[in-house]
């Protein structure tokens, strides 16, 4: 069993490396995060308005963003597998498969509700706080509490 798996095969965002990260090697992810956060803000993906326009089919913008991101992702993963590209540390790249659970339906719908209300998925929450909308820190705390509550009642939920 890998580090994150806990009977519900939730391995999102998993560290597939066997090499121990140090504080210094983790700075790489800080830098990638900064670049990512800048794109989030400059493309206005973190805008509540863009999310409303997406769900009310008023604008193509978010479909273009997500669609082109997925296309680049699919091609990248295909190339990595096809040419057996290694990490910069020389490791084989490991991607955990996702296994189906009913949680993807129930949880997916609930997250969809939250996404349309807050206009944010978890990533944009961090960026929104960075743009100076400090009250979103409350939304983030509430999301952490929601995550905790899921862990608390997980075994009673259908999966």
């Amino acid at each position, binding site marked *: 069993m890998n580090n*994150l798996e806990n009977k519900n095969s*939730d391995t*999102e*965002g*998993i560290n597939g490396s066997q090499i121990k*990260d140090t504080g210094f090697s*983790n700075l790489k*992810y800080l830098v*990638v*995060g900064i670049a*990512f*956060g*800048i794109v*989030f*803000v400059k*493309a206005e*993906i*973190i805008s509540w308005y863009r999310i*409303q326009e997406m*769900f009310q089919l*008023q*604008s*193509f*913008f*978010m479909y273009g963003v*997500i*669609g082109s*991101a997925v296309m680049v992702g699919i091609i990248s993963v295909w190339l990595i597998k096809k040419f057996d*590209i290694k*990490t*910069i540390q020389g490791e084989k*790249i*490991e991607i955990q498969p*996702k296994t189906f*659970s009913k*949680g993807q*339906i129930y*949880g*997916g719908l609930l*997250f*969809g*509700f*939250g996404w*349309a*209300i807050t206009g*944010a*998925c*978890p990533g944009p*929450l*961090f960026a929104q706080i*960075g*743009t100076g909308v400090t*009250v*979103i820190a*409350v*939304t983030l705390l509430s*999301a*952490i509490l929601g*995550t905790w509550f899921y*862990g608390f009642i997980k075994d009673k939920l259908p999966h």
Partner: protein
Amino acid sequence: MNIIEILKEPWPWYVSGPLIGLTVPILLIIGNKSFGISSSLRHICAMCIPANISFFKYDWKKESWNLFFVLGIFLGGVIATYLLSNPNPVVITPELSAQLATYGITDHSGLVPKDLFSWESLFTLRGFIMIVVGGFLVGFGTRYAGGCTSGHAIMGISNLQWPSLVATICFMIGGFIMANLILPYILSL
């Protein structure tokens, strides 16, 4: 127009979408990390309030890259706002603008409407639902679904995982139902 002024304009989807997609191979190649953001919330729980719950009993330090990544997203937000800020108000579709005006939401000077997301608003019923209940649903729903837009819609579909496609379709259905059928009632509160 110089380069900084171009960067200050809102970036088009065909620039930002592919840049977001590139995060997938970059994270894999620099350290075998699978792209996913909502997992950071789980690590924060594991770090701060594990409360002996099995779901939070794992070596969160091994996953700490994710916390550096989200700290970076926060700093990216700071940098984009203070160095590359668009001087003009956010452009929104006339339909949305007209709709929001009926709920008294007219201040479009920021990326999120100030009439909904502010400390004053937090203590109204409408603001509480938008800020607190919305956040709770995001945290609970993503974890129940085993991922969010990044973990499922981008990373999972990039790896051609059909459960991620199911999750993504459900995110969209939930969003459509909320934005079109339920949110109008919340906004009228």
